[in-house]
């Protein structure tokens, strides 16, 4: 990597200037809010550092996110192209829907019949005490459209849990990671899938290996691209019907 020197006025935080100035780094501007342009060397260091930290401290979800962003340079364009060539995926890229508490009508979803996507999604959020708003916004993706793709992948993750019927414990997360690894090809998912089981007990490993993994792998390979589903327009659809449509086999 080259030594990077800031040739323009650095961002001022000590009140010298009136407002924050956009900084020119590596010859490119900030492409989206929260974007931090990085050199190839920085990305490599970030990838290595975040991989280590994510394994060392599993509660550092931000590190998992950073790992995904810094290693996704091949998988993300792939995913974007898959979306572009699919009518529903294309619409998602155009309309850029976001899954957030502020955009979801939780009351309406809760009122939907049992077994519907909306009802089961809310049930999943409440049972596992998670919220769609805790997903990290992307920082190190150097393309604004790809930044949306990875954001969409993150926001759809909870729906994956719902469709696969997997809870947010370590075992459930590993199963979802295997499914996502096959679906997206993101190195972060592959690493999570391979190294996640390290923290599982022997009994859970057995369940994983004999029942859950074979099913997850088969489903992952059989299913169409999960990013090509406009989930926000399918809250009323029964989960089973959606599973069948995508190609996910019923969970064991």
């Amino acid at each position, binding site marked *: 990597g080259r030594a990077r020197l800031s040739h323009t006025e650095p961002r001022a935080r000590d009140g010298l200037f009136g407002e924050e100035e956009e900084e020119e780094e590596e010859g490119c501007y900030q492409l989206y809010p929260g974007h931090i342009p990085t050199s190839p060397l920085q990305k490599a260091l*970030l990838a290595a550092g*975040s991989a280590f930290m994510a394994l060392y401290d599993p509660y550092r979800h931000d590190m998992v996110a950073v790992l995904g962003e810094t290693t996704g340079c091949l998988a993300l364009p792939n995913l974007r192209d898959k979306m572009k060539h699919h009518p529903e995926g294309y619409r998602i890229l155009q309309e850029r829907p976001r899954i957030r508490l502020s955009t979801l009508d939780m009351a309406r979803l809760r009122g939907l019949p049992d077994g519907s996507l909306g009802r089961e999604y809310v049930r999943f959020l409440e049972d596992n005490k998670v919220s769609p708003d805790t997903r990290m916004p992307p920082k190190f993706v150097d393309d604004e459209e790809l930044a949306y793709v990875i954001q969409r992948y993150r926001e759809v993750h909870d729906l994956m849990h719902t469709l696969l019927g997997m809870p947010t414990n370590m075992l459930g997360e590993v199963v979802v990671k295997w499914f996502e690894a096959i679906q997206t090809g993101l190195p972060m998912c592959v690493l999570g899938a391979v190294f996640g089981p390290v923290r599982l007990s022997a009994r859970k490993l057995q369940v994983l290996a004999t029942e859950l993994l074979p099913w997850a792998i088969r489903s992952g390979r059989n299913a169409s691209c999960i990013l090509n589903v406009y989930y926000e327009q399918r809250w009323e659809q029964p989960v089973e019907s959606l599973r069948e449509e995508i190609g996910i086999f019923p969970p064991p």
Partner: protein
Amino acid sequence: GDIAFRFINYVCSVRERQLQQKLKHHQNLSWQEIAESYLEDKFKSLGDSQVVVCDINKEMLKVGKQKAQQLGYSEGLSWVLGNAEELPFDDDKFDVYTIAFGIRNVTRIDLALQEAYRVLKPGGRFLCLEFSHVSNPLFSRLYDLYSFQVIPVLGEVIAGDWKSYQYLVESIRRFPPQEEFMAMIEDAGFLKVDYQNLNLGIVAIHSGFKL
């Protein structure tokens, strides 16, 4: 805070040694008298020496106080909330003014230097420890590479905070180099101003006297 602790340690050890010297010369003191003189000096192990720790940030002062308590420092220390550009002290009050990795964050460095001059007694010394500039071209390139490529990454991985560490390395580059800072200190009225580089200039100690 850390400098205050080192100063207190130093004063205490010097006085210990003085006390020991004094006792050596009085060979025929009774145990009683020896014990008494130790006790007496324990109360005043610092003598009249005092340290004032000043910071603009209340949280920093809190951390300093906690550390002092943990390490067992109680006497001779006071903690004052203040702005280096406008110190809450009278003129000609201190023998020594030290600032370590602080002056870089001051908006008007010239004002901070003027205030330092004001509160020092005649004969008092100004000492500043701060990041400075590396003149060696090869080492400078390595240092830049490390600063800009590695430090923000470490900030992100360890603290989840890229931007603060990016700011840190940039603010270091914005600070005036050794000679320029020396001139600024002279402008504030200090004499016999000099500096000493540490680690090839990554850090420098500047010194000046109010005479």
